[in-house]
């Protein structure tokens, strides 16, 4: 009689995802409802069109890039596990979490958050943000509001500041170093309402 996703059993790989991502059962349930909501045709997975249906995302200058972060290279669809694994990066970091040595690094660690942001820049995933890639991101964020020269000079300055080994590209270590003092946890975290 009747059915609903009122228990974690209805969420595919529920228990495993809870362990992996650190989301509580309640949060995972909410995210599953959201996933199903975005999946308008009930396919069980999301395509980029489903993401594009969110108007606030279309307003975001790097909206396409963010959507791209959900798709694994070569894949055209996002299932619920991948969806949640990406969102897990935005969980607030727990302060006093002790980790057994063999456990993999949690998705919302400072390092992983930085990696996520790095991947937004480094689209071809070669481990470096090249000048071209930086220019591309800048162009997206600024649109037609700046001239080519202004864009170049901004990129020049950014690379000059961060590029320590002078290879005209920013590696992940250089990226991390330049953001040493930034409060990543606060700025790259999304809190759930209880």
């Amino acid at each position: 009689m009747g059915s609903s996703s009122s228990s974690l059993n209805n969420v595919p790989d529920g228990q495993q995802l809870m362990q992996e991502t650190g989301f509580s059962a309640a949060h995972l349930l909410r995210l599953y409802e959201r996933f199903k909501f975005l999946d308008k045709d009930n396919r069980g997975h999301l395509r980029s069109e489903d993401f594009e249906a969110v108007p606030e995302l279309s307003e975001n200058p790097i909206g396409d890039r963010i959507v791209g972060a959900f798709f694994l290279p070569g894949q055209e669809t996002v299932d619920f596990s991948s969806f949640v694994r990406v969102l897990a990066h935005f969980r607030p970091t727990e302060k006093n979490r002790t980790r057994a040595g063999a456990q993999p690094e949690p998705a919302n660690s400072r390092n992983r958050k930085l990696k996520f942001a790095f991947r937004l820049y480094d689209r071809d995933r070669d481990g470096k943000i090249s000048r071209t890639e930086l220019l591309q991101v800048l162009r997206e964020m600024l649109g037609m509001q700046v001239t080519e020269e202004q864009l170049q000079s901004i990129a020049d300055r950014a690379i000059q500041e961060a590029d320590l080994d002078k290879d005209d590209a920013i590696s992940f270590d250089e990226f991390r170093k330049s953001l040493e003092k930034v409060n990543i946890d606060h700025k790259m975290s999304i809190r759930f309402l209880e």
Partner: protein
Amino acid sequence: MELFFNPFDNLLCILLGISFTVWFTLLLVFIIVPAIFGVSFGIRRLYMKTLLKIFEWATLRLERGAKEKNHHLYKPYSNAIIAREPTTSLEEEIKEIRRSGSNKDLDSASEFEMSDIFYFARRGVESIMDDEVTKRFSAEELESWNLLTRSNYNFHYISLRLTVLWGLGLLIRYGILLPLRVTLAFTGVGLLVFLTSLIGLLPNGRMKSFLSEKVHLMCYRICVRALTAIITYHDSENKPKNGGICVANHTSPIDVIILASDGCYAMVGQIHGGLMGVIQRSMVKACPHVWFERSEVKDRHLVAKRLSDHVQDKTKLPILIFPEGTCINNTSVMMFKKGSFDIGATVYPVAIKYDPRFGDAFWNSSKFGMVNYLLRMMSSWAIVCSVWYLPPMSREEGEDAVQFANRVKAAIARKGGLVDLLWDGGLKREKVKDTFKEEQQKLYSKMLVGTQEDRSRS
């Protein structure tokens, strides 16, 4: 053998005949006659109170049952999943990120930082997790259960009593209420078509308008009873007058019936084929409505001209328009299209708020067709709503159509307790225009490039 069956058959026929007559008389006395004269016995309000008590009991039972079985009761999120920062500006947020990251003097270093991307990334992911717009286009989720499985997310087998109640509810709704309502609906529509065509034969004049008014009101009232709609009208002294335009928020096609059963309006719309078209064509015989052919709808000037001609004629009824252009789920009011606010007539705003506890009136046209929707409406418990007539507004000096539209929208949202959104209802089907993205880019570039200019100057 035949002798044995005969008296039985007779008895059956007699019983059927009697029940039919009783049924029809009851219908006539309690529903149709009051509809004609516009009085009410108060039966529907009693019905509503009883239902509310039953729903409360059902919800309590559900919650108790869930606790006993240690199920996680899913509380539907009515507003938000995530905590969003109060809307600080782009500039403030990015500055904050940078402030935490550098010791440099802030004013001289307001140039691009690699950490700027955090702002956009987080905003983007927040939108993916929860956004203000898309949830307006699906039915509102309820806190308590109203014995309709279509609005329930927790329904497991909790207790025998609850299931029996649900089953009983099902029987009543589909076995008794639905046939009753369908009969009424057919009566109402049939009478409308028939009588308006009849009135159309009369010469234009006071008698004709008078009769057409009475006929329209009567038929709409029958339709209101066909939906068991319990409507409370507030501030009726502000009811729209001739030569004005009545604007209201749109949740479903039933809005028309609700408003038109309390006053006479000239409808605006496109001529359809089929039954709808028949109704439209006969209505226009009795009094002037504004129907457009499909081809004419695209021509904005033509539409505007016909509307303004209509309002200028003071003998004609006020026009009824829904400026949102599409059905919204009654938790918010979306952008009003400026066309009707450009004509220069007095605008009479009306706010309609449905009580979702008895039956969700929102028409999700991408999910259900019209017939399916009407059947769902007629098999709900009731449609309970409140209508507020707001005082008339006119366009002020120096105000353009868009500002006027927004002012009216804000008034309607405030009165009806709905959220006032800037977003366009057309987003249900179309994508966001690029102008919104440009806005964000402009804000960001002002931050960066603006500072660079200062730098080159110094």
